[in-house]
């Protein structure tokens, strides 16, 4: 399968890329890892007339802690996250998630920025970013702006990244104190999108009270979903078995999965409940 014809540019600076985006408007698309875009172009679900490859722009790929944030450059590849020491030591949720995203060859190319900018509720990083309370830095010709993750996903394949803009950085409030996070998705086979997935983050004070909690759900609603009632019941609690049970119950009630080849609605709600419980327990044990 071969995509429709397009023109190709590979700028070496962000300014050049932004100028090209401006010039070509909605006919143009950014090419990051290409592992969502090229398959869509081969199937002719997408037919941009101009591809702007941003792989040759230096400085968009890093994982670092700075100013109270974990900062991840938009062009950081899944494999680079998997192999980062900071991630291994403090943000194990990414180890859980990347292992379940596609396969090693895809992870050699797919970028975190692309995974979010693609705007697909079936992708795994959106739920992770919701649980961790990420902010997304978007750069346009007028400068930079920051959007909270809850305002980032607008609809199927649409996000807060407007025409003429590039997603440049992901910022996550840095782990501090007793902090733990975990992700799991049920999938039919390696490389499949989630039947249902749950990301969980908790922070616990020295008395054992939960001071922060985040729960994000993958592929069980039209947009990546924050399980708000679940978070509310966790924050301020002692994270007892019954609190976890209640949080999991709320998550299963508040999502809106649709029946497809991966399962019916009831099954998916059940998965959300079971995985929420397990991921909360895993995050709590990692926090301790």
């Amino acid at each position, binding site marked *: 399968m071969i995509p429709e014809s397009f023109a190709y540019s590979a700028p070496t600076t962000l300014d050049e890329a932004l100028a090209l985006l401006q010039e070509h408007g909605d006919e143009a698309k950014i090419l990051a890892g*290409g592992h969502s875009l090229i398959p869509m172009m081969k199937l002719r679900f997408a037919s941009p007339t101009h591809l702007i490859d941003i792989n040759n722009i230096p400085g968009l790929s890093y994982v670092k802690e700075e100013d109270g944030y974990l900062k991840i450059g938009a062009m950081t590849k899944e494999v680079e996250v998997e192999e980062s020491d900071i991630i291994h030591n403090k943000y194990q949720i990414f180890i859980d998630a990347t292992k379940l995203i596609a396969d090693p060859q895809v992870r050699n*190319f797919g970028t975190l920025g692309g995974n979010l900018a693609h705007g697909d509720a079936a992708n795994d990083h959106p739920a992770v970013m919701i649980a961790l309370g990420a902010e997304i830095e978007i750069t346009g010709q007028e400068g930079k702006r920051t959007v909270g993750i809850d305002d980032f996903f607008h609809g199927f394949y649409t996000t807060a990244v407007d025409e003429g803009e590039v997603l440049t950085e992901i910022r996550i409030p840095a782990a501090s104190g007793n902090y733990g996070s975990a992700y799991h998705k049920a999938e039919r086979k390696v490389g499949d999108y989630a039947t249902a997935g749950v990301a969980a983050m908790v922070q616990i004070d020295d008395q054992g009270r939960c001071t922060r909690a985040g729960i994000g759900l993958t592929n069980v609603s039209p947009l990546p979903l924050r399980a708000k009632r679940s978070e509310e019941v966790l924050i301020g609690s002692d994270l007892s078995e019954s609190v976890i049970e209640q949080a999991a119950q709320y998550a299963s009630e508040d999502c809106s999965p649709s029946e497809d080849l991966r399962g019916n609605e009831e099954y998916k709600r059940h998965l959300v409940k079971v995985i929420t419980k397990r991921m909360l327990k895993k995050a709590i044990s990692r926090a301790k």
Partner: protein
Amino acid sequence: MTKKITLKINGTEHTMEVEPRMLLVHAIRENASLTGTHIGCDTSSCGACTILIDGKSAKSCTILAVQADGKEIATVEGLATAEGLHPIQEGFHLNHALHCGFCTPGMMMRAIELLDKNPNPTEEEIRWGIAGNLCRCTGYNNIVSAIQWTSAKMQGKELPSTEPKFV
């Protein structure tokens, strides 16, 4: 509009005029006439088209030829030398790790990066490591054995038995 690109495949430079929409796998198979790299699914799933770009395993059906301009590409054709087979080829041969052979070039190219990053992988690490490569014939066990054998060979360790295992 075509673009002039140079792919350095197995050490030899191939300069070609390509449309930006040409997939790397077609440039390798059709323009460079190296047909060892296979097309299985053409939908980024099976790994038959796996090659190395600057040492990293890649599904060449999901990469544009223009993206690989100036890069070092390794395909199955570059594995054997005048001295003989590459250890991974020897491993696959001795461990009966192929039947029809369709998945084999991609499987071996993937295994090379796996062993490069992790010279002594566990069985579980090997199975996760080849998760992007499908084989419709072998049932994978002999492929895992072949990679274990190659790991031992490349590290100069005692070689595991290559007697067929019945599991």
